[in-house]
């Protein structure tokens, strides 16, 4: 909370605030001291909040027209597209909104990886973020099943069958998930229920995510602690609000491009064919944002180990604060980590690419090498690097690299002695 006591100006405001301190909360949020050197990579938190609200609002109105029944779901989606007023717009915003949500969340995650935002004292913020990410994947997967097209049906079949890899109880778990002996109407209705529930769980976790953020305050590109409030910080409003707002506008231009000019480019044509339990499409692929993990799943020749590898690839992120042994947060001062960071980015992009390709020949080989490297990065490179790397000296404050022109400690010291 803010370091100063807040008292509302009006008498009515004071009366209300004494009974429910909502105005104190609003004051905390507007005055919240923010490092003044935040760059545009820090605007994706706000963009993600916008994405979540967009998905909830468009999803709510789609649910007014959609029918969660195996015989009617496909037709009701076409009804939304053709008959419902602006139905095409609302559905395209919702469908592309999911992709935009993941685009933003990947930038947000890789921002944290570059600037070490997951390190002490921000581990809880990071772990809540990973839980949100897992819930997002569950929501996106179940949402993709609802139109009951061929990709919906077979995607649901393949993903739920992953649970059959569990020893002994696997088959029972899959039957329980399906509510039958195959993906069918009971599966569709429960997926709809959960797809409706999860965004509100995410909303609750976002509140915790921001609450946990406001305890230590924001990390920043230099990655050193700031004193707050001080000359190192600016109030959230209007400085960050304006910056976030501008970034959001840029993001919305990209969003609008997809919605109005390429609404189906991120989808699959097969999903405009109604679900048919007798015919499997020739090439099953998940949505683009799940491809790296799909590539990891397929790169392991054993069914159970493939599933274990895929889940580990996500869950390993939760223990990242303890795998990275370096005390220095920002990659700016870690010359070696910076290189490994970009190799990891390339590695994940390669995994995404081979995930979309057939699992054979050269693609399979590349997927295996990239999978091995992914785990190598987190399990070997990060722990060793933190102990061995020679880092660049940190500046004394976030103001110093700007005013002093160099992040070099020696120069900073010289300047300090001059001041004395």
């Amino acid at each position, binding site marked *: 909370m803010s370091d100063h006591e807040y008292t509302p100006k009006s008498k009515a405001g004071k009366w209300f605030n004494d009974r429910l301190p909502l105005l104190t909360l609003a004051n905390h949020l507007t005055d919240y001291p923010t490092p003044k050197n935040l760059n545009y990579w820090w605007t994706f938190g706000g963009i993600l909040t916008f994405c979540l609200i967009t998905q909830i609002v468009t999803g709510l109105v789609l649910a007014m027209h959609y029918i969660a029944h195996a015989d009617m779901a496909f037709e009701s989606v076409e009804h939304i597209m053709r008959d419902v007023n602006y139905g095409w717009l609302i559905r395209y915003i919702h469908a592309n909104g999911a992709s935009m949500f993941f685009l933003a969340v990947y930038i947000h995650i890789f921002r944290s990886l570059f600037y070490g935002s997951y390190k002490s004292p921000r581990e809880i913020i990071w772990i809540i973020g990973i839980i949100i990410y897992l819930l997002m994947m569950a929501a996106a997967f179940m949402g993709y099943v609802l139109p009951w097209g061929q990709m919906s049906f*077979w995607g649901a079949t393949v993903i739920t069958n992953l649970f059959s890899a569990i020893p002994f109880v696997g088959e029972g778990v899959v039957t329980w998930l399906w509510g039958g002996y195959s993906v069918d109407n009971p599966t569709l209705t*429960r997926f709809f229920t959960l797809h409706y529930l999860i965004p509100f769980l995410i909303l609750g976790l976002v509140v915790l995510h921001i609450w946990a953020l406001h305890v230590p305050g924001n990390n920043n590109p230099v990655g050193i602690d700031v004193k707050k409030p001080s000359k190192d910080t600016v109030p959230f409003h209007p400085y960050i609000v304006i910056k976030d707002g501008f970034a959001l506008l840029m993001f919305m231009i990209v969003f609008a491009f997809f919605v109005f000019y390429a609404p189906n480019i991120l989808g699959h044509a097969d999903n405009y064919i109604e679900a048919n339990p007798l015919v499997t499409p020739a090439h099953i692929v998940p949505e683009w944002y799940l491809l790296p993990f799909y590539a990891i799943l397929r790169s392991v020749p054993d069914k159970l180990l493939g599933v274990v590898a895929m889940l580990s690839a996500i869950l390993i992120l939760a223990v990242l604060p303890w795998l990275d042994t370096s005390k220095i947060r920002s990659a700016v001062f870690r010359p070696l980590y910076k290189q490994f960071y970009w190799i990891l980015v390339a590695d994940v992009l390669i995994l995404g690419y081979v995930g979309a390709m057939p699992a054979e020949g050269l693609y399979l080989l590349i997927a295996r090498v990239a999978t091995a490297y992914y785990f190598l990065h987190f399990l070997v490179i990060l722990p060793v690097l933190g102990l061995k790397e020679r880092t660049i000296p940190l500046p004394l404050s976030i103001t110093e690299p700007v005013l002093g022109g160099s992040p070099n400690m020696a120069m900073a010291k010289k300047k300090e002695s001059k001041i004395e």
Partner: protein
Amino acid sequence: MSDKKPERRDFLFTATYAVGAVGAAAVVWPLVDQMNPDASVKALASTEVNVSSLKPGNTITVLWRGKPVFIRRRTQEEIDVARSVKMEDLIHPEKDEDRAKNPEWLVMLGVCTHLGCVPLNDKGDYDGWFCPCHGSHYDTSGRIRKGPAPWNMEIPKYEFVNANTIKIG
């Protein structure tokens, strides 16, 4: 733990927790079990299929419990190939005699044992079935020969009601 001897109150706490846990489990179970297959799903447990029009070398696919079932009337050549395979060449060793009691008729779930896709007829390196999803090859007995699938395609419970009708389930 402290050296304090357990009192009446400690016993009451433990008993209360235990009763509470049993009560919570009793409430949770119906909420979990409602997701299992319901009575109407279980009631669709069997299907009868007329196979009189099926010629040798052809396959029909019927839906049973929401899953495809392949019924193939095999040619003599296919039977001979399936029965001459050595057991040590199989990933999941099963005799063709055990999979097709009546050698002319192969009745099996058309579900790949890898991740549940429907394999394609008369395809693959063993002239049986080929799964397009992740590349599993099955022979003319529906046994896995190559690819990520761990087991042979499953043989459901079925019987010939008369010469022309198969009852599955």
